[in-house]
């Protein structure tokens, strides 16, 4: 029944997130022909600097469908919107959810409570990551392009594993603050900060969570970013463990 309760508590976030991500993915596919026509009139831009380099690359990639989906979708729209909803799904919980004493009077350990919330939330996040990705595959024929299901799932998986870190971060923050807003805004701030760092960092240097999220190495060379995925998974586990420890030592 804890699963049912988690569902009741997060269903609107999940459904709205699913709707928005599906719309984003769908709109992206449908606008591609327009964009392609537009770009054919634009020569290669001459822009300097690291940022300029990125913009130039995005434009170049977008001339071709697969590149477009990666640059617009998995690197940008789906990643940003997805991260937001991963955080939203991880917020809430015992401290801010209300009726904490009632829940704590049930014969379940705090670890159980957290475990079920985390599992339910991650299951929802998995759907949010995979279903819009699959939609891209499904809808591509509509505009006369094709996008492989395996490719879509691979990118969806990267989105899921990397995004799970932000989900877990939100869950940890939710065990530190008693309201909904501070964990939410703090997690978003951290996500934005990491994004900024990655933008400013040198192109090929180091590891970035958003690179894992977009499945960049898979896009460029067909190799899944296993190291990055493993590190992300480990980070998620560590954050959730910290959340459990925090929840246990808390007085209600």
């Amino acid at each position, binding site marked *: 029944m804890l699963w049912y309760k988690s569902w*009741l508590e997060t269903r609107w976030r999940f459904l709205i997130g699913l709707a928005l991500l599906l719309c984003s993915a769908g709109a992206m596919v449908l606008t591609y022909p327009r964009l392609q026509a537009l770009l054919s009139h634009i020569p290669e831009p001459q822009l300097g600097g690291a940022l300029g380099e990125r913009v130039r690359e995005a434009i170049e990639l977008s001339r071709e469908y697969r590149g477009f989906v990666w640059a617009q979708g998995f690197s940008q729209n789906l990643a940003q919107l997805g991260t937001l909803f991963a955080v939203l799904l991880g917020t809430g919980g015992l401290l801010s959810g209300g009726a904490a004493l009632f829940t704590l*009077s*049930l014969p379940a350990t705090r670890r159980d409570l957290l475990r079920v919330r985390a599992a339910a939330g991650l299951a929802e996040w998995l759907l949010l990551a995979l279903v819009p990705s699959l939609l891209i595959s499904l809808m591509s024929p509509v505009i006369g392009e094709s996008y492989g299901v395996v490719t879509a799932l691979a990118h969806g998986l990267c989105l899921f594993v990397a995004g799970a870190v932000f989900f877990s971060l939100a869950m940890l923050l939710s065990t530190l603050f008693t309201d909904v807003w501070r964990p939410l805004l703090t997690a978003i701030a951290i996500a934005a900060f990491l994004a900024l760092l990655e933008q400013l960092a040198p192109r090929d240097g180091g590891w970035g969570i958003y690179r894992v999220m977009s499945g960049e190495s898979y896009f460029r060379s067909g190799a899944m970013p296993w190291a990055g995925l493993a590190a992300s998974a480990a980070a998620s586990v560590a954050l959730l463990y910290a959340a459990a420890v925090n929840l246990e030592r808390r007085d209600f």
Partner: protein
Amino acid sequence: MADPLVIETSDLRKRYGAAEALRGLALAVPKGSIFGFLGRNGAGKTTTIKILLGMAHASGGDARVFGLPAGSPAAGVEIRRRTGFAGEEKDLYDYMTVAEIVRFTAAFYPRWRRDLEQRYRRAFDLPADRKVKALSRGMRTKLALLLALSRGAELLVLDEPTSGLDPAASEEVLQALVSHVGSEEMTVFFSSHQIADVEQIADRIAIVDRGRTVVAGSLDDMRASYRRIQFVFAGDAPEMTFRAPGVVRTHRQGRVWSVLASGGADAIVEEARALHPVSVDVMPVALKDIFLETVAAED
């Protein structure tokens, strides 16, 4: 032939930062009793209850329920499996309906009593499809109580079960509690500000003040031994310190000496006779007066 103790605490301590909520609280609740837990706001009643049920962690001392340590997470699950709880705030899941939250709670208790659930659904007149957030305070209290009573639990822990209820609803609640103890092998532990309710149904009580137990025992024993003794003297009442034990409070005003004794009234009367009072009145004391006199005045 001692009753096993369902709840037992010794030297229970709890501090929140610099503030000491509990300073060595002792409790002994025998099985099958209805135990009233009295104290002013902030005396430590809710803190104690939270510690017993694993919602808060004690800073020191020992707390046991069913003989199990209240502080251990694993034991805590076992304790809560056998305990029905209703908190002071009666907070429940706003977004669930009455039927949903009953079904939700029932899923956790293999010994859930459908018969009691039906009985109280009817008696408390709770509409199945109404969302919890649309219930009045009184109905929420009754729902919280139904959820606690139907668990098939051996122990009921209730924080202010009748607060906010009108007298008729309050009486329904008391009747449900009394009926529970009568038919099941149950113990009820409840904290309350309604001293009249406690006097009506409790057989044992504890009064807690500033984190410590100041009075504890069987209500009937207290009714038999607590006395208010009033001495009137011809002139101004003299200064006197009593050697006899059992003097709780004394109050001197003009020609009158008033003594609240927790026992041994006759010894006190004997001692005071040496001062030749003009009249001696020995009267029984209501629980409310015992409470007011043993609990410290505002600091």
